[in-house]
């Protein structure tokens, strides 16, 4: 290669040496990326903390409402993610708050935008709401909701996701961790039944990594699976969008044709697994033999049950479960004030004691959604049964789990090791969910 001098002053010269620079730069970047992968793979697991921080100082909101003569005006903030879970939350909230209790409600629907959620709540406070029920999109970004409520001296009850603020009166939480745990137990039992002992590869289809749901569902699953060294995991995925995850699941299944089970963190992932298996030419018998366990129950999973491809679903509470407790919690606060209205950390939660005015027989189209929660064993408050989560969820050691705030985990039903395999087809996804669907 020979060069001529540029004809115009300042014109860019590209020489072989210049080229070499880019090759070297590319090699350096590739080396750094390789080193990064090596470091990532070799790093030790983060040590698990075993207990939440204690001694968090807080004050309580002042109960200012007189339920005898005032009609409560409540702000309810959802995550606005446009998925069935969130949609059912909204339907459940509107039904219970407006139709059953006759309260006024301001809805904040931020469409998964943390700032919009904060702004929406701020506007609602400015309008003069008496209480706030919120599912923060982000524990940190939406901690401002707690701050705003505290400054306005308004009670705040959370559901679904917690926040880094000590103002929430109580937190009603899904059983993501237990969902993962029971899915793992089922997979282990089935592997033992089918292959003599728990061994082989399990495909783990993740939701959005770092989201609380994914972290807890993963923790629950891994805590069981890691006890079985002959089980290896093939981990794939990073979103809650099945169409986006399908190619990845298919690639992982193509590379691992000896998979024995699939753990699906979201209902729609089952369709990905089955479609991918069929696309890859797996025989129907092999697809049915694949042990598919799932944290959700969507209509596609019911189809999976009917086809014989879905083996187990463990579902999480939605609208009629969580939102009703939140509103009743506010009612109890206005009646008794804090902290008498909430269960102390570690105490078994009973409706009779803490939410005695729950409208069990409230109907929607002839259906009584709350009947499914009616059980004296229902719910545990605080940390005694939930402190296992502190060790695994990076956002958990927040004030929310501190000395004062009650944190109530809602099981989708009372589950024991004896009955956890029962098909929960009666539960509110197919009934309440499909009604809302139509």
């Amino acid at each position, binding site marked *: *290669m*020979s*060069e*001529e001098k540029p*004809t115009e002053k300042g014109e*860019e010269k*590209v020489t072989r040496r*210049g*080229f070499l620079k*880019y090759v070297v*730069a*590319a090699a350096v*970047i590739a080396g750094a*990326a390789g080193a*990064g*992968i090596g470091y*990532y*793979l070799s790093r030790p697991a983060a040590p698990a903390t075993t207990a939440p921080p204690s001694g968090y100082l807080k004050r309580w909101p002042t109960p200012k409402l007189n339920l005898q003569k005032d009609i409560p005006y409540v702000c309810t903030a959802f995550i606005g*993610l*446009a*998925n*069935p879970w*969130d*949609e059912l939350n*909204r339907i459940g909230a509107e039904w219970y708050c407006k139709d059953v209790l006759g309260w006024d409600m301001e809805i904040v629907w931020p*469409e998964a935008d943390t700032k919009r959620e904060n702004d929406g709540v701020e506007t609602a406070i400015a309008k003069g709401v008496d209480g706030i029920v919120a599912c923060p999109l982000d524990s940190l970004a939406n901690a401002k909701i707690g701050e705003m409520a505290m400054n306005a001296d308004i009670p705040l009850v959370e559901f679904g996701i917690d926040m880094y603020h000590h103002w929430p009166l109580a937190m009603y939480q899904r059983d993501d961790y237990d969902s993962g745990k029971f899915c793992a137990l089922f997979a282990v039992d089935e592997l033992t039944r089918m292959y003599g002992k728990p061994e082989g590869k399990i495909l783990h289809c*993740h939701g959005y*990594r770092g989201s609380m749901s994914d972290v807890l569902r993963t923790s629950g699953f891994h805590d069981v699976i890691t006890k079985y060294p002959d089980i290896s995991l*093939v*981990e*794939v*995925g*990073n979103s*809650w*969008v*099945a*169409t*986006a995850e*399908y*190619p*990845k*699941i*298919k*690639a*992982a299944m*193509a*590379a691992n044709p000896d998979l024995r089970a699939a753990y699906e963190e979201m*209902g*729609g992932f089952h*369709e*990905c697994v089955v*479609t991918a298996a069929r*696309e*890859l*030419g797996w025989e129907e018998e092999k697809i049915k033999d694949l042990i598919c366990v799932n944290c959700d129950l*969507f*209509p*596609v999973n019911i*189809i999976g049950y009917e086809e014989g491809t879905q083996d187990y679903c463990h579902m999480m509470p939605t609208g009629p479960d969580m939102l009703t407790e939140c509103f009743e919690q506010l009612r109890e606060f206005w009646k008794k004030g804090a902290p008498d209205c909430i269960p102390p950390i570690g105490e078994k939660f009973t409706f009779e004691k803490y939410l005695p005015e729950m409208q069990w027989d409230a109907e929607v189209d002839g259906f009584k959604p709350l009947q499914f929660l009616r059980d004296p064993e229902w719910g545990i408050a605080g940390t005694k049964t939930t402190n296992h989560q502190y060790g695994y969820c990076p956002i958990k050691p927040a004030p929310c789990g501190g000395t004062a705030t009650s944190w109530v985990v809602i099981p989708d039903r009372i589950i024991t090791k004896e009955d956890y395999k029962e098909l929960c087809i009666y539960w509110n996804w197919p009934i309440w969910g499909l009604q809302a*669907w139509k």
Partner: protein
Amino acid sequence: MNKEKIILFCIDNLVWLLVIATFIIFSLLCPIYATLSSIYAILQIAAFVGPIALGLMLCVLAGDFDLSLAQIAGLGAVLVCWFVELSGLNLPYYVVLSMPFIAALLIGLFQGTLIGRFGLNPFLITLAGWIIWRSLKLYFSGGHYFSVTRPEYIFLGHARIYGTIHVSAAIFLAITILMWFILTHTKIGTWICAVGSAPDTAKRLGVNPGKIKLLVHTVAALLAALTGIFYVGQLRGFVQPNVADWDIFKAFIAIAVAGVDIRGGRGRVPNVLGGVVFYAMILHGAQMLNIPWPFSEYILPGGLTLLAVALLHRLDIFRDMIIARKIRI
């Protein structure tokens, strides 16, 4: 063929060299990668990114952007499901399947008119479109997950030709060939590139840039609608409201790796095919190798795109200097 021509050919088709290199590397690391089944899977991934990438390329060639294409695709998918499951109208399947195209046509004409006729900024207009069409998508879905299982609706996204290549991939390849022909063998193709590279000159030569922009935005929207119909079938009719939400980034990766000049006027359709296939190969290969997710999801595609773009930038200058005889090989 002399040395200069070989170098120019390699520069112009760099993406295909990347495709070949990627294929060889992944095949060595994971032998299953080189099977026909794997290649079909790669082509299927490409078929879902491809039409949006082709549409985006058209807009970029004409000196514009269209950020809303992925949302138009998602809206198309949700519209089909809405008409089947929620509307209560029992419309024939061909009418339902034409709805995404009708919506896309209206959207394309609307955005194209604002950009071409009124000279509004394409980035801002299509960003607004991104928000509006996404909201419409969520509105029509109402938060529901759809399960449209009737075969006529899932055929295009799900079916395969005699158990080999997917129908969606075949359609994408056919469209690619058609678009290549139009851009290289017709006046319209020349006009599009002219408007993108030198709009004033094109205007003086009698080309109406406004009409060209209207055309490219409309065609791009129609291509996005086709992707939406593919999405209906991908998982046997299982469609979520957030379908295709971030696909525009995949399309941008594809056209960037393909060497389409983001300033307009320069880009080759076969290279966009190469860019889309390259993206699909990386996605597929990374999962097959079970590479940890931060690398397979973000660092690998992002880093490779960065490298490819930097390399292409230098090679573009190099090529121009060879062509201008400022450097002799």
